[in-house]
């Protein structure tokens, strides 16, 4: 499990990072083309947005594994058992959302086969697919996270303070 998830995380980060690099380059090219090359370009916004949407969903999935999504921590860290129970609850509560991302994300992707992008004319299914793909990875990551939550609840160890907690 850990090994598979680790691999998925690596692939996601690699792809998302590359997409980020692509969309910076795309927008820089747009400025260059319009102002200095005198070329009309109208595909750049669309490519940049496509990369952006994919990278957000891939990044959001990895953030599930790293447990860095924003949470409101009302209880101080001293309440170890309660906090551990809440951690478990928080992870379980993500499951219905992940279910919708996977199942309805797939339906939505199907709908995207008949909706094309405005300037490139490609089916938007290629963009929508980011949602179920991200959902599937979140499901795998959540299994691992829930295992950790359960172990921590049994052994009574304190979870580390989450990075970037809200």
């Amino acid at each position, binding site marked *: 499990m850990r090994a598979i998830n680790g691999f998925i995380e690596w692939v996601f*980060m*690699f792809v*998302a*990072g*590359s997409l*980020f*690099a692509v*969309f*910076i380059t795309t*927008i*820089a090219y*747009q*400025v260059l083309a319009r*102002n200095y090359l005198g070329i009309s370009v109208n595909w750049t*916004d669309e490519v*940049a*947005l496509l990369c*952006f*949407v994919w*990278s*957000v*969903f*891939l*990044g*959001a999935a*990895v*953030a599930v594994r*790293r447990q*860095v*999504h*924003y*949470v*409101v*921590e*009302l209880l101080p860290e001293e309440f170890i058992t309660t*906090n551990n129970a*809440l*951690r478990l*609850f*928080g992870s379980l*509560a*993500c499951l*219905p*959302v992940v279910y*919708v*991302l996977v*199942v*309805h*994300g797939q*339906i*939505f992707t199907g*709908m995207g086969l008949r909706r094309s992008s405005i300037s490139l004319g490609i089916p938007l299914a290629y*963009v*929508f697919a980011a*949602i179920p793909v991200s959902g599937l990875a979140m499901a795998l990551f959540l299994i691992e996270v829930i295992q950790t939550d359960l172990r921590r609840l049994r052994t009574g160890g304190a979870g580390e*303070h989450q*990075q*970037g*907690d*809200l």
Partner: protein
Amino acid sequence: MPPILTLIASFLVLIALRVPIAFAIGLASIMTIWQLGIPLTSVVNQMFASINSFPLLAVPFFLLLGRLMNDGGITDRLLNFADATVGHIRGGLGHINVMVSMMFASLSGSAAADTASVGGVLIPAMKKAGYPAPFAVALTAASSVLGGIIPPSILMVIYGAFGNVSVGALFLGGIVPGILIGLSQMGYTYVVARKFDIKPQQKASLRRVAETGLSAAPPMILPIVILGGITLGVFTATEAAAIAVVVGLLLSMGLYRAIRPSALPRIFSDSVIAYSLPMFAVASAGIMGWLISYLGIAREVAEFILSITETRIGLTLMITAFMLIIGTVLSPVTAVIIFLPIIQSIGTIGGIDQVHLGLIVVLSLMLGLVTPPYGICLLIATQIGNVSTPRAFMAILPLIGLVLAIIVAGIVLPALFMFLPWTFLPDAFPGR
């Protein structure tokens, strides 16, 4: 239970139970949609729709820029220079934070981008200098709301376009409150710096000022690129952000050689996580905003407000209060688009000038950017500063209070905000 109660109550319970916010919004919406008996596919449609927006692209760029400036040693150079010039004034770094945000605000219409870029540099620096981390986070977030107040402002453009109000007049009207907020924040910084006894340093020698100035000169190209590029019409705010990243890369890798090419993948993937978090929350908030429109709650709110008061000041205060509450769960743009018809009809009944009303609404909604759960600037700042939200929220309360005081002053004394638009754009006010 009425669907709106399901939506709001389940959302509040879920975040209190430590469910990640983006997922709490999602789950509350799923439960509401389930109760309404409509298909859940709307959830993913609305998630996609809310992040499929070009202006949002500026956020990743400025997050990355902040990182490059840090890793590339640019931040240190800027700070050394700032230190040498204003370090001897009490609260120097805090003043710089506010000043930079005011300058930044005059370049960009986006508050979130300001938090990301200024915060990425100044939060670590302020922490290092001995400011309490929650204060550094709070000041950065609070000052960056100026991005939507000092012109240009994306929110004002949208307000004007949807509400048929002069955008130029809104821009002019944003100047005075913007400057007042900035000054009040600098005043508060001075008080905090005194309280925590942040040591003002000795006045630097002229030689040191010159040295640090020379060392900081190349990165100064960045604001010039952004400011010059936008004012000369070379690029839009989003494009300016992308160009600033390219210049930042050239400086840190080419000129300073502080970042090796092999470090780039790491920097890029860290930045992806840093923007995915707020953007995934934006995607989720989009579902909730859509549900609020869909349920027709806006109309009920208008009737409720008019049943309480019909005086000008009373109505404006009610709208302010309502916008503050709405701003905690909706992005300003969504809130404006959803509630504008109601706001404007209340304004007409109460005899409130539409430009003045627009300014009050924009100011109140900008505060929503620093109030959790949907407080994107506070989210980004806490992310950078590694501070928990309750602590950051406590620290930002006095700063919110200052903005509120300025809003109330503007409500009671319309001329305070409206002097500039009245003087320079008399055509926009045919009744006067």
